[in-house]
């Protein structure tokens, strides 16, 4: 199986700054991210579909996600949502999201079961079954809305520790006072010139979903901003999202 590589593989500066290292910075790996969007007038249908497929509600507000069954849903537009869930076991099929698909996967090339044609004829892939993304695909027909996989397009970073808020405030022009940007709060905003989704997953822990192609630059920028406080880089780990969002501080 091909190896997945992090966007940060070429930018891995050492732990730095002062001797005291109150801040931990790292990348969260191993999650699946999917954009689901309804058309004007089909939001209610999409909501029902998501609820029945995943058992999670769509958030009404932009500043707080909803969670259930291991899936966290952020609202990103009037009818658009980002769903973050556990790694979908090498989901096949990124390509296929949003298609009305038949329920019987048919290997197209019998001599190599690793290969399936999934395009024009909309044939189901062989590999992935029973994943939450597939469940959603089943539930959302193209007239109801669109599904766009973005797991590879976003890099998920986290900062944890007392200075986390101050480090973020060097680049994010939002009020991050704990009474204003509350725990489990989220926002789409800018980190300097790049767009980010900021999620406060603990009292002193923040996660940032950044565009993958900017991830290296943002990593360098964040670790540089963290220097005056002292920080430590933890091994890039596969952390379950909701364990974080549900409570660790």
């Amino acid at each position: 199986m091909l190896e997945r590589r992090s966007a940060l593989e070429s930018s891995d500066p050492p732990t730095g700054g002062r001797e005291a290292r109150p801040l931990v910075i790292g990348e969260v790996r191993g999650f699946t991210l999917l954009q689901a969007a309804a058309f004007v007038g089909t939001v209610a249908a999409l909501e029902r579909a998501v609820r029945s497929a995943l058992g999670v509600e769509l958030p009404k507000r932009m500043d707080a996600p909803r969670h259930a069954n291991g899936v966290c849903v952020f609202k990103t537009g009037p009818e658009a949502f980002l769903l973050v869930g556990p790694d979908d076991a090498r989901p096949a099929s990124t390509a296929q999201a949003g298609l009305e698909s038949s329920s019987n996967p048919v290997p197209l090339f019998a001599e190599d079961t690793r290969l399936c044609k999934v395009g024009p004829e909309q044939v189901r892939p062989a590999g992935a079954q029973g994943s939450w993304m597939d469940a959603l695909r089943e539930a959302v027909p193209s007239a109801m809305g669109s599904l766009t996989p973005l797991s590879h397009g976003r890099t998920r970073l986290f900062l944890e520790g007392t200075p986390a808020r101050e480090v973020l405030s060097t680049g994010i022009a939002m009020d991050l006072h704990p009474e204003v940007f509350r725990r489990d709060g989220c926002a789409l905003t800018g980190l300097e010139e790049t767009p980010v989704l900021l999620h406060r997953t603990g009292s002193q822990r923040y996660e940032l979903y950044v565009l993958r192609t900017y991830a290296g630059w943002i990593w360098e920028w964040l670790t540089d901003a963290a220097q005056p406080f002292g920080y430590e880089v933890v091994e890039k780990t596969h952390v379950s999202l909701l364990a974080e969002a549900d409570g660790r501080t």
Partner: protein
Amino acid sequence: MSAGSHRVRAGGRIDRTEPRAFSLDGRRLAGYRGDTLASALLAAGVSVVGRSFKYHRPRGFVTAGVDEPNGLFTLGEGGRAEPNAQGTVVQLTDGLRAASQNAWPSVRFDLGAVNSWIAPVLQAGFYYKTFMGPTRRAWMFYERLIRRAAGLGAARPDPDPDRYDTRYLFTDVLVIGAGPAGLSAALAAGRSGARVLLIEQDGLLGGTLLSDPVTGQTEPWRARLEAELQSLPEVRILRHTTALGAYDGNTVILLTRRDHCAPDPGKGEALQILTSVRARAVIHSTGATERPLVFPDNDRPGVMMASAVRTYLNRYAVACGRHAVVLTNNDSAYTAAFDLAPQIDRVTVVDVRRAIHPALTAKAASLGVEVHAATAVTGVLGRTRVRGVTLTPIDGARSRPAACDLLCVSGGWSPVVHLSSHGGIRPRYQADSAAFVPGSYAPGHFGAGALTGRFSLGEAVQTGWRSGLQAEAECGFERASAGPPAVPEGAAPWDTANHRIEPVWALGGARAGKAFVDFQNDVTIRDLTIAHQEGYESVEHLKRFTTLGMGTDQGKTSNINALAIMAGLRGIELPEAGSTTFRPPFVPARLGALAGRHVGRHFRPVRRSPLHAWHLGHGAQMIEAGPWLRPWYYRWAGETVERAYLEEMRRVRAAVGLSDVSTLGKIDVQGPDAAEFLDRLYVNGFARLPVGKARYGVMLNDAGTILDDGTTTRLAETRYFMTTTTAGAGEVMSWLEFLVQTAWPELRVHVSSVTDEWAGIAVAGPQARAVLERALPGCDVSNEALPHMGCLEIEWDRMPVRLIRLSFSGELAYELYVPADYGTAFWEHLLSSGEPFGIRPYGLEALASLRIEKGHVAGAEVDPRLTLNDLGLGRMARPEKPFIGRELAARPLLDSPERPSLVGLECLESGQRLRGGAILFAASDELKGHGRGYVTSVTWSPTLGKFIALGFYAGGLRHAGEEIVCAFPLYGERVRARITSPVFLDPKGERLHA
């Protein structure tokens, strides 16, 4: 005088247990912790600290704060050398090295002072009237001399080793200035629980209270307020922090200086931090600064502001002289006289007013201070140090000299209205205090203390408290229960709201000697008179003509005096003369602080392809392409780009190569109306594109000129995969969103950027199919299964792959898209699969050259000034189908067949080359003017063995076969070339259909 000879034995806020060694121009000196550079120099008896801008007159310190016009130094050395630092605000640190400026050989003996001899010629605006001959370029000669004489400190080219940070803060209430009004306001707001940010440019809180004796009545009050503020959890205090400017949206920009603690940039410590504060309410408690009086030779070292002398005495324990004359037009200067009297030999007050409050004269008498009422100082004796003054009674009696070594001046107080005026609000003149005060306040802004033109301590505390309550109400907080802090008992009788000022601006007549209005820029009363005579009367003309207020102090001490004097000359009232425009920053701010960490490689964000690390590890020379870094060429093919790209091209043409095309913009278009959407967008049709097919498309903007191009593939009935140019991706994405959201909301279509989601790899060359067959065993990539412009979506090794057969190089070629995390592994897989066929990576330069051979437009040709016809693509448009830009593309002059349009060019001369940017002429043309066209892209074609180019030529391919001239006069070159089809290679497309 020996070092430290002016230091008073006890008192002050300096810490005598912590000496600080520093140097001025190499001379070693000492001061204490708590000193400023200025107080330490004054303590050491240094009187001349600078030379003026124009006449190079010796100058000493005038003030004790940010309004200092004279005492400017270059601090530090090498990469840390900072010119034009005000000695009055520089914290004294151990090892500080200061150098004086604008003088040669030294500030005490400066040859530039010869300018004083010809001063009458160097009057205001003299340079507009001369230096115009003998030749037209004569100014270039004079300018060199003038430039050398001008300027203050020197800049150095060394990079700055220091670090600067920026940050954003949010607060309910921002209090600017921690004088008595600010402390009171912060407390009122803070007690309610509001988030308060109190900023103070000084290192200590208290403002003018810090100039009171430490043992005086106000100190316990000051300390108590400071302590309570520090105990409130939502009150944040920033010291050494100056508000530079007030901007839209209740944003105030702050600069925090940490130069007193020598930060270590290696540990990420910033020298300065720039903070952008958004406050729901802003309290301006910026205080007031004392202003000088204008009289002959009022710039001599030893002429100082009365309040500054008092500050040096009480805060820094420095007596600026032994025998002081205090010249005033108001009560406030008496405090200085009374504080000085017990500490020095003799104090005399010279008061221009006739009536003086009896309490003052009584107190003066008790301290042995002589008071001369209705008297002015009309001259100063001494050149590098005051030796005496000329006293002239107002009623015209005879003048007489009086000896002294210090002249303390008070011409009244000017509220610091800068910040409250940044919002465009003009200050208004308040006659009873002879001061400009804020004309009004922006919504959510409040004023307090001396800023309001009310100068007593009691009023400061009261107005501060009131504004604090107003601010907290603005933010919706409950009013705190306790009342304002009690004002210290026994306020002096002269502590009145307006100091009983009698506005007098200039003494001693307009013509006698040099009476300075602006010290730093050497503007005298006489200059103002000349400006008036010549008609430069409006405030702005006056400033620009005389350079008044244009120095590093921005006229903090000079503006009002100048306005008043000009009003007098014009015979109008002061308010009629208007006021100057106050522009940020309030004090000069380092550009480093503005730039923050956006310097060097952080200057602008870098975008990296998912394959970036591989390129770096495999000999790629990278090149900037907009925000992206892309492989320019690879070292396997050569050490220089000139050699490498040819080798890479050869490999593609003869065997197979692969290149990273991840930077292309990628947009996912989904929805039942996706086809209709694309049909409206592109000039050509996409609705009837079969599923599994790709098509090249061009889109125009509303004006009918080129917006972008790219290939769009139909993945399903309701889903397309669009690619855009690398440079156009962001613009196109916003444009599609604009159309979907505002113009055609009835269409059920979604557009999503998936540029970051997919890695893109092009495999090109005669062996491309063989590589894929080996890389994707079992996948039928035969010409039948996957013809040119066909698309397969497959899954390989449980990873989705989009395989689109299309060619930019003209060879048999494919673009493969895989999820970005797999990009590198899949690229490596393709490389190893292609090894038997000699596959090698190729970079941007080869990519560009391959497409030139094939005549594909890109880069310089996809020019938003051009039309579809200009690119030779007019036939793509389906005019029966409405598309964006169709109407305006038909504007008469855009349709002209004589517009330059795309052609190919081949070089007809061996040993010569074509160059991008050459201008094209017909063979018979005179080489003059704009020519008939120009060259956009050039390459040596290893396939054809000659230089070929793409360019635009009037009439385009109607001239195919003609011999023309490519002129490159920058290099003195003219080269013959022939116009050809832009498709140099395989015009029938046999290779790409193979």
